[in-house]
Each structure stands twice: as structure tokens, then as C-alpha cells.
């Protein structure tokens, strides 16, 4: 039971992280601070 909840939480976290990455990919740059290397799949 606990491992299922943990897995679901982890999936949710990764979904949020991916959403942030996709949203940022459409911009010219990160809104401030360091610009990490854009992954190949997010490059147009």
C-alpha cells in the first residue's frame, strides 16, 4: 500500500517537473538565475 502511494507521488512529482520543463522550453530564457542545458527533446 505504502509503496503504491509513494509511486503515485513520485509520478505526480515527475509530471510537475516535466510540465515546468515544457513551459520553460517555450520561453527565451529561464526567468532568472542560471539557464540549465535544454534537453534535446525540448529543442525545436
Amino acid at each position, binding site marked *: 500500500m505504502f509503496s503504491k502511494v509513494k509511486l503515485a507521488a513520485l509520478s505526480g512529482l515527475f509530471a510537475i517537473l516535466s510540465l515546468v520543463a515544457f513551459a*520553460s522550453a517555450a520561453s527565451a530564457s529561464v526567468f532568472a538565475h542560471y539557464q540549465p542545458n535544454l534537453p534535446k527533446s525540448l529543442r525545436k
Partner: protein
Amino acid sequence: MLEQLLNKFITSQGSKLEMDEEKMAVANYGLQIIVYSTIGVILIFFIASLLGAVMAAFAAFITAALLRTFSGGAHCKGPLKCMSITCMVFPLLGVISVNISASAAAYSYYTTGIIFLFALLSFYKFAPVDCANKPITCSLQKKQLRLVSFSLISIFLLLSIVFQYRYYEIVLAGQLGILWQSLTLWPLSIKITQRYDQLLAKN
């Protein structure tokens, strides 16, 4: 070091979800953005509160950050280098604004005019400015980013005019943020940033 730590976290947790490398790279990119931005904002808050200019520093930061999202600009090669500049500049802009706003209020129309003219010129000539870590290759995206940048500048100009009598300190800080962001678009700023990178790499 922080980059490696984040990468390790994503790899270990992503493998539990049986994710492929590209999906993990995307999640890692998202995590880096969140972590660096959060640390940066906390540091700006901390330094600005020590200097007594939190509101003004955040006015400058938010204005510049919004514009930077669509216009890009010079970036350092490492997170610490980039963060060190940001965390010095915005509290400093806040302090400048707090200290000169009373005396500069009499010339507010001139400062507003000069800053926005300079911003429009910089954006017209250079925006959007990409960097090696995030190249902009699509011409349509470039056009859209330029359009949003100009729209934001126009909105900020309108807000400046409306609020400059009531909240001049904050308005001035925002204008200094716009000035800073405009300066980061110029090729000279990119060269200075590269020099700063080299200088820190040597030490």
C-alpha cells in the same frame, strides 16, 4: 555539485518509474529550474532584507524576470556564477531606488522617458537573445517572443505612468529592473559575462 546531486536524485527516482533517459533529462531540467530559482529568490530576499530594500528589490527582480522570460539575455556558464550576479544586482537596484527615489521624483518623467526609450531601442535591436544552453532556432518563436517583449514593455510603461505619483520608489525600482534587463541584451554585456566566467574559472 548541486547539479550532480539533482541528477542523481532524478536518476534514482526515475529508474523506479522505469523512465527512459530523455524523460529523465526533461524532469531534471524542470527540477533544476525550480531549485535554482527558489535558492535565488531566497538569497535575494535575504540580502535585500539585510539592506532594508525588500519591496524595491523584488519590484526590480520581478520586472526584469518577466522581461527576461521573453527577451533572454546574457547568462553565466554555471549556476553559482549566474546566481552571484543576480543576488548582488537586484538588492543593489532596490537600495539605489530606496535612496534616490525622493530626490529623483522631481525628474520622474525624464527618467521614465529615457529608460523606456533605451529599453525599446535595446529590445528592437537585440531581443530575443538566446544562449548556448537554450538556442532559439525557430523564426516564428523569435517573432512571438519579440512581440510579447514589446507588449510587456508597453504594459510596464503604462503602469509606470499610472503609479509614479503614489509608489515612486517601487516604480523606480521596476524601471531599474527594465534598464538592467535591457543592458543584458547588448553584445557588450555578453562579452562582460564571458570575462566574468573566465575570471571565476581561473580562481
